[in-house]
């Protein structure tokens, strides 16, 4: 029972640490949003991906749970990447982070 409680305490600590890490990353994102030029998009995507991995890996237990669940999510992400990347080409998604003015 002793071990049991300890395991739970350490788990709760991991959750709290994750929470603060996510908070800090969000702050950094606000900073990255003020960047200009080619670096802004990759910086933002990298930060958001890190946050997503933390949420899925720790809060949703993917790190500790069966790899089946991770595989399911990766299959969905594969289709998602496919859709977004091809839409970028065929529907001209504008990834430009500078001012988008109405063109009319």
């Amino acid at each position, binding site marked *: 029972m002793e071990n*049991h*409680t300890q395991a*739970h305490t350490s*788990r*709760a600590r991991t*959750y*709290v640490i*994750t*929470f603060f890490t*996510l*908070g800090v990353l*969000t702050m950094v*994102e*606000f900073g*990255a*949003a003020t960047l200009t030029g080619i670096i*802004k*998009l990759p910086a*933002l*995507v990298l*930060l*958001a991906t890190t*946050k*997503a991995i933390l*949420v*899925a890996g720790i*809060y*949703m*237990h993917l790190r500790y*749970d*069966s790899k*089946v*669940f991770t595989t*399911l*999510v990766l*299959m*969905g*992400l594969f*289709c*998602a990447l496919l*859709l*977004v990347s091809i*839409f970028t080409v065929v*529907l*001209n*998604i*504008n*990834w*430009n*982070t500078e*001012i*988008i*003015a*109405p*063109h*009319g």
Partner: protein
Amino acid sequence: MEHSVSHSAHEHEMGSLGVDTKKLGMWTFLGSEVMLFTALIATYLVFRGKSVAGPTPQEAFADVTIVAFNTLVLLCSSLTMVLAHEGVERGDRKRFFAFILATAALGALFLSVQVYEYTKLINVEGMGLGVNLFSASFFTLTGFHGAHVSIGVLLLLITALRGWRQGFTKEFPLGVEMIGLYWHFVDLVWVVIFTLVYLLR
């Protein structure tokens, strides 16, 4: 069922893949939800710079105070959600009810702030479904997300009520874990929306 092989502290129905059946169902559903939000986000990205009339994302999201607050709210709710799950696994009733109700409250707060944000965007910035494509795809995307949050709040309250009325049955921790998965997924979608909609403006 007392004899069944259980790899975890609580009751699971391990199937031929060695995972719990209900949890596998939830993850399969979330896999599908990934594509739902992908299609919505792609629509937003296609349209955000193609409006023939204003306002533009730059004008509408010049001030991110509200959305920063809401991001914090959702972030906190994810923490309270995992702590609620941890509470139920420990069998700590007080901890569980405190944290699951806090999660529901934070979800409700998120929704209220979103309604406030919407009214501000409509009344001050002049956005609206029929105004331009940016507005329409923004409201569709965040509206779908908000609908998911609303369903989540409802499910959280139902789960809390079940725990209250029936106590912590054998299946209960799994139920909490499943609603937790859903809740974190909705939070995760917000991480993406926050970056691609509000920061990549």
